[in-house]
């Protein structure tokens, strides 16, 4: 049998279904792979000691006929998600060793579906960053080039997939934390419609922007995982109560002949190239558009003038909400506690704990957000940013009059070298130029590989966005393009990655 770690989840599920392989075998193969390569990649912060035990239980359930679908397939979980049986640190020292008394809804749903948690993956502290360099627990390395960043904040989940340490992973996306890592590691990342997947048990960064979603190696796998984790959750008030179609079915539909015929693909002129975009990224983007056009899609140009203010608005709204969400880390009830010498007051203990427990980027954004919400500045900063948000939503609405989906490069560049931007926050922020608008508007966005940049041979991603609740369209167009590209490449892009 071929190496189990190279197979997509859809094929592993088929093998499990046919009784050709056990979950224990699959899980062990991935644990072995982690043991072999994670020393170099450092995708995982914690490996689940009970993975084999869980796999055994799923095998028994499959034998008893009570498990199907993805049951028995392993999954890596971004450390932003609460897990009953593993520490959940959100990449921060302030939560070192904290084991929550509950599972995030998405984790509970995966367990119920029989997926086998492999462990928790590295991330920028509290999901603040685009390179995973802001993790309190060390850098994750891009499997394509270990000297480069794996993207962020969910660099651990993306790297785990690209290094074949896990067939499926969960991420969270506040401004691109699923899609940008997918883009720079040659994997697939989906940010669902805001409210499409429960946020309960996801350690909040910016509540109005955060969305949990699947990170995988194929579009179909993303659809399969999305079907498991998505849907209404009464524990999240912002969760959409309506029923959703099957996203796996939408992906399968994309692989059928003529699936994109007549589909209007809107190219956002402000995000299609120009300053800040690496030429190789734009080249691959154009190539993908041409393939879609050949397959019968109609390429139209749309304009979204307000998108130029997206990063500015985002870096007011996000820190404002984050400053409030992170106030709970005060040492009183959980997590780190630092007690200064002498006779400290409760305020002294809180300050010392936050001083020691938070990293620089987190402190920077807390200070920024506190300022943006201050009396006298609220209207000028937070208030204005919310107005920009409304304008961006209107731009999306106008664009979706002309197009069924919008397309942009997923990130302006390929993976940059570790350490090259960590001291330049503004340069780092610009990396989320193309992903942030979807979060501000609450619309879904998917990133899939569109090839390798000619100048550096590193993966490039293409992003599609759809109107809110139309996530299924993204799976259809994504799967269609994936098929067109893979037949050109003669297989998945990751097959071209250097072996570790």
């Amino acid at each position: 049998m071929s190496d189990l770690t190279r197979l997509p989840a859809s094929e592993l599920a088929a093998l499990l279904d046919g009784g050709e392989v056990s979950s224990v075998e699959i899980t062990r193969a991935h644990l072995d792979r982690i043991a072999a390569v994670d020393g170099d990649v450092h995708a995982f912060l914690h490996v689940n000691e009970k993975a084999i035990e869980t796999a055994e239980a799923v095998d028994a359930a499959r034998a008893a006929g009570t498990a199907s679908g993805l049951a028995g397939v392993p999954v890596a979980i971004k450390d932003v998600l609460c897990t009953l049986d593993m520490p959940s640190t959100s990449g921060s020292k302030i939560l070192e060793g904290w084991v929550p008394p509950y599972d995030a809804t998405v984790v509970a749903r995966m367990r119920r579906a029989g997926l086998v948690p492999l462990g928790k993956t590295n991330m920028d502290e509290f999901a603040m960053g685009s390179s995973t360099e802001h993790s309190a627990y060390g850098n994750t390395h891009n499997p394509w080039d270990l000297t480069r960043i794996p993207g962020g904040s969910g660099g651990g989940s993306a790297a785990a997939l690209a290094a074949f340490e896990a067939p499926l992973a969960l991420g969270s996306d506040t401004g691109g934390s699923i899609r940008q890592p997918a883009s720079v590691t040659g994997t697939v990342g989906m940010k669902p419609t805001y409210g499409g997947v429960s946020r309960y048990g996801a350690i909040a960064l910016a509540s109005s922007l955060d969305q949990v979603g699947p990170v995988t190696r194929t579009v179909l796998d993303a659809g399969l995982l999305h079907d498991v984790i998505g849907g209404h959750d009464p524990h999240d008030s912002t969760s959409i109560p309506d029923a959703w179609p099957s996203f796996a079915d939408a992906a399968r539909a994309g692989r059928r002949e003529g699936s994109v015929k007549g589909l209007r693909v809107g190219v956002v002129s402000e995000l299609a190239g120009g300053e800040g975009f690496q030429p190789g990224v734009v080249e691959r983007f154009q190539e993908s558009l041409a393939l879609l056009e050949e397959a019968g899609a109609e390429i139209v140009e749309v304009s979204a003038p307000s998108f130029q203010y997206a990063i500015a608005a985002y870096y007011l709204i996000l820190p404002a909400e984050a400053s409030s969400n992170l106030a709970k880390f005060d040492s009183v009830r959980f997590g780190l506690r630092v007690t200064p010498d002498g006779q400290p007051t409760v305020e002294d203990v809180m300050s010392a704990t936050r001083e020691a427990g938070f990293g620089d980027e987190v402190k920077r954004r807390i200070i920024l957000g506190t300022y943006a919400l201050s009396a006298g500045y609220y209207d000028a900063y937070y208030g204005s940013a919310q107005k920009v948000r409304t304008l961006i939503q209107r731009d999306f609405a106008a664009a979706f009059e002309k197009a069924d989906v919008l397309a942009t490069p997923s990130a302006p560049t390929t993976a940059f070298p570790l350490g090259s931007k960590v001291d330049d926050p503004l340069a780092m922020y610009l990396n989320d130029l193309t992903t942030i608008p979807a979060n501000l508007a609450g619309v879904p966005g998917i990133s899939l590989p569109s090839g390798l940049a000619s100048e550096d041979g590193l993966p490039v991603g293409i992003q599609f966005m759809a109107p809110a609740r139309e996530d299924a369209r993204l799976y259809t167009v994504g799967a269609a393009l994936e098929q067109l590209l893979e037949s050109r490449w003669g297989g998945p892009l990751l097959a071209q990655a250097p072996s570790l």
Partner: protein
Amino acid sequence: MPKPDLMDFDKALELFEPVLGFEVHVELSTATKMFSDAPNPAAPGGFGAAPNTQITPLCLGLPGSLPVVNEKAIEYSISLGLALGCQIAPSSRFARKNYFYPDLAKNYQISQYDEPIAFEGSVEIELEDGTAFTIPIERAHMEEDAGKLTHMGGSTGRIHGAEYSLVDYNRAGVPLVEIVTKPIFGAEHRAPEVGKAYVSTIRDMVRALGISEARMERGNLRCDANVSLRPRGQEKLGTRTETKNVNSFRSVERAVRYEIQRQAAILAAGGTITQETRHWHEDRGVTSAGRPKSDADDYRYFPEPDLLPVEPSPELIEQLRAALPEAPAVRRRRLQEAWGFTDLEFRDVKNAGLLVEVEETVAAGAAPAQARKWWTGEIARIANTRSAEPAELVSPLHVSELIALIESGDLTDRLARQVLEGVIEGEGRPSEVVEARGLKVVSDDGALIAAIDEALAAQPDVLEKIRDGKVQAAGAVIGAVMKAMRGQADAARVRELVLERATGE
């Protein structure tokens, strides 16, 4: 702490016009909390749970937890808003009020800021002499309560000087409605009375609505009283103080009076009032300075992104409006008629804040006149000596039982007072106290006749006097018998027996 100078109340009113404002927090008695399915300690029977047992991850502000609005709390809030004569917002929003304090698990409180659920109302209150007075209502908004801190090791029970503090998060997340009045003008020398009558009206209202246990001593109802003075003839409002912890009707009255007298003394001496929160000390009857409070307190309010706007349907609002209990004035007329009280009798009950108690006592089977007599008499007297509210001391059910024991002849009024004392001391229900203290009336005529014989032996001329028509002479024998029986005899029966003896011989 020396008592500051106080100006004579009448003199203060001559020089200054008092302007009042009240913030009343009402804990709703829903089964679960405002934003989580934790049991609500303010629900019936929920009081007194062991610390940190009525909690969920949200009550502790654990990472990843999220709030979900309790729909029942929304309904209760709408009902209260309607009873306050307010408009109900078709869409209102929760906001985060950000500040660090160890009893606030998330370090922000979910409250309503610029978009309250109810606004622009008014409440009619009735003063002691029956005059009506209108309190203008600014808004009623929903929020969550904080946990409770107990400061240990200090002498004052306050955070300063304490060695350590204990936090109980049971109360964290209890649903609250905060009712904020507009500035209240025109109360003049009745300002203290207006305060008391307002809070008592709110209590009666929430009890009638069935949305709160409304026990002030348990913190179900909490009042902050704002007082400012302006010199007569001045348009501009004076600087106000906000007195916290005013948690009984009587305290509201006393605290308002105290603040008027204190502020007047300062202003008349050329001083200025500091805008601050002040603490009310029930024991000493004074307020003391708390935290300076400026309008610049920065809570960095912003709309709560974890919750959707509250958008009650017009149908729901109308349904709740139709289910409102009768208006207080209508209710008062109905009760007075049903009980057959004179205006004066009824006003006595109402002014003592005992309408609900009498109503419930009557509902439990007591005669209205008896219920009134016990509540406004003995129970009010004991409450007064203990600086407590009558309702805190004894339940209407027990008072009704006490009255039944009198009616059946098992207790005399005098014995009943002792039984009441036992009930208040927590010795059980009246019948249990009667049993335990052995207070039952001696209804055995044989024992009474023996005592009468003994008394007559000491005062042999009494029978003669009675036969001569001096019936009042029996009093001396009755007194002696009652003394011998340690009060546990029915004086009327003793009298009957004495008279029988006189006429029978």
